[in-house]
């Protein structure tokens, strides 16, 4: 449920947040990125990262066949190795939800749909809500909505808040992830404000990016967002999750994010219910590293599916 904020205090609340020490955030993210995770810890990290992946395809060229193949891969990422865990969810455009739903039924793998005029979000509230309702009705268990960055940057926080709250209401039982599109928010202060705004408005997850804007997910931005969910929880709010998405391609990257989660938010966030990695090519690299640890030989991409 959205928090009840006294009218007019939203701006005061967001601008009352402490500013982000930009140099400090970058430095801390870079320091944590140097941590070395090896052998058994690496094995655990890889399996955890696989369980946290939102396997994503958001292309104009997506076909029903590609989405079905993606769903099959989500349930059993490595056909040659049944011990490889399933991913957390697949993430597709709303019109592909009816295609993926029957494939994933009963598997425990979530079905996420982007909605609300993804990726730009430049459409009317009615259309955004209809978009969300259609996706939920078709079987989406998670909704990835985009915020109105134009309104946010113009200072119209109330509009952004109301939109998130309205979409949250349409979601029903489905989890709501709010995409901040940090690449368009320019400053870390804005990222912090947008994070708190989304949390107050009822977000279950805050997500960095659509993947359509560069820069997408970065370690410092994710650090600021992890601080926001941690502080929001410490202040008596829900324990919301974070999802960096876009540009995470290697196992090394993924493990850096896990280190960040543990050190910034805490161990209880090291769970697919509280942290996700939005990615498409990352999964193959995780599987290759997993195979390498198992067999001792470097694996090659020829042995894994392309999508």
């Amino acid at each position, binding site marked *: 449920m959205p928090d009840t904020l006294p009218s007019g205090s939203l701006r005061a609340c967001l601008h009352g947040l402490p500013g982000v020490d930009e140099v400090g955030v970058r430095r801390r993210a870079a320091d944590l990125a140097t941590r070395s995770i090896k052998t058994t810890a690496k094995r655990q990290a890889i399996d955890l990262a696989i369980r946290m992946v939102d396997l994503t395809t958001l292309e104009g060229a997506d076909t029903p066949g590609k989405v079905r193949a993606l769903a099959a891969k989500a349930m059993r990422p490595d056909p040659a190795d049944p011990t490889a865990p399933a991913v957390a969810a697949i993430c597709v455009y709303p019109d592909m939800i009816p295609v993926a739903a029957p494939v994933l039924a009963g598997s425990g793998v979530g079905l996420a749909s982007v909605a609300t005029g993804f990726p730009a979000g430049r459409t009317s509230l009615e259309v955004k809500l209809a978009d969300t309702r259609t996706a939920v009705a078709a079987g989406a268990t998670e909704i990835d909505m985009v915020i109105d960055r134009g309104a946010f940057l113009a200072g119209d926080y109330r509009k952004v808040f109301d939109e998130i709250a309205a979409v949250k209401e349409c979601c029903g039982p489905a989890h709501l992830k709010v995409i901040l599109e940090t690449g368009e928010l320019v400053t870390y202060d804005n990222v912090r404000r947008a994070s708190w705004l989304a949390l107050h408005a009822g977000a279950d997850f805050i997500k960095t990016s659509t993947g359509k804007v560069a820069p997408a997910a970065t370690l410092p931005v994710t650090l600021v967002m992890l601080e926001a969910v941690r502080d929001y929880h410490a202040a008596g709010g829900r324990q919301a999750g974070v999802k960096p998405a876009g540009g995470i391609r290697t196992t090394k990257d993924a493990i850096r994010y896990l280190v960040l989660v543990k050190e910034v938010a805490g161990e209880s966030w090291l769970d697919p219910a509280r942290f996700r990695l939005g990615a498409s090519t990352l999964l193959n690299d995780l599987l290759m590293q997993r195979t390498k640890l198992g067999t*001792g*030989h*470097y*694996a*090659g*991409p*020829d*042995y894994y599916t392309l999508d």
Partner: protein
Amino acid sequence: MADRTPSAPARVAVRRTYKLYLGGAFPRSESGRSYPVTSSRGVHLANAALASRKDVRDAVVAARKAFPGWSGRTACNRGQILYRIAEMMEGRRAQFAGEVAAAQGMSEARAQGVVSAAIDRWVYYAGWADKLGQVLGAANPVSGPYFNHSQPEPTGVAGILAPAGSPLLGLVAVLAPVITAGNTAVLVAGERAPLPAVTLAEALATSDLPGGVVNVLTGRLSELAPPLAGHADVNALDLAGAGELAGELEELAAGTLKRVVRPGLHDDWSAADPGVARIRPFVETKTVWHPMGV
């Protein structure tokens, strides 16, 4: 005014760092290690980078990345670039000759001969680049109204263990045919005499050869060869310098069905006309059936 005053201090020598050649750059080993290289008489020559299995991994990634671009070049263009490599080596002739003489314990004159042969080998394979299709391909007679033809295509990423006894000519003799066919290569230089390989890498870097097509590693054969042979993203393996490891490496390579060239096959490096013997193992044959109209 004299150029030199009596009190001028002796100039500090600018010594060369012998590094790896990975993806078109010259990094030190990921491990930060190096090892001393001595001449055939035991005189210390330099310290070379002691590559690790992670450098092997990075080299394979670089070679894989360079493969579509290199194999997609026209054969004619590959020939031109191979000839350019010969030109660049010619400019460094003195350096090569010095390194070969020190490594193999031969006279300056004989070393010059070896360098000439190595340069000529590039020119030789430069000529082969656009003639492979004619020699290894065929128009096949078939019983039907089809035009049926076969063409050689590069195998992919090749791992090459350079021959130990011939650090320049032998190295060129195994490397040139592999890239002539459009493959990309991860080359492990001879452990005892890696310096000519590093100098060759510096010539390659200035010869229009795209970065990553040839990646040169120096270090212990016993450390670098097994991960290379077992790597699933390596498609072919030349064991010219494998020595007694050959059997073990062949077994590892079989795990991912690599093409393997065993040591001892056509390894008279001084033969000036080796033909396609070392090219053929690194190509795949594609056969196309094309319906013939009336």
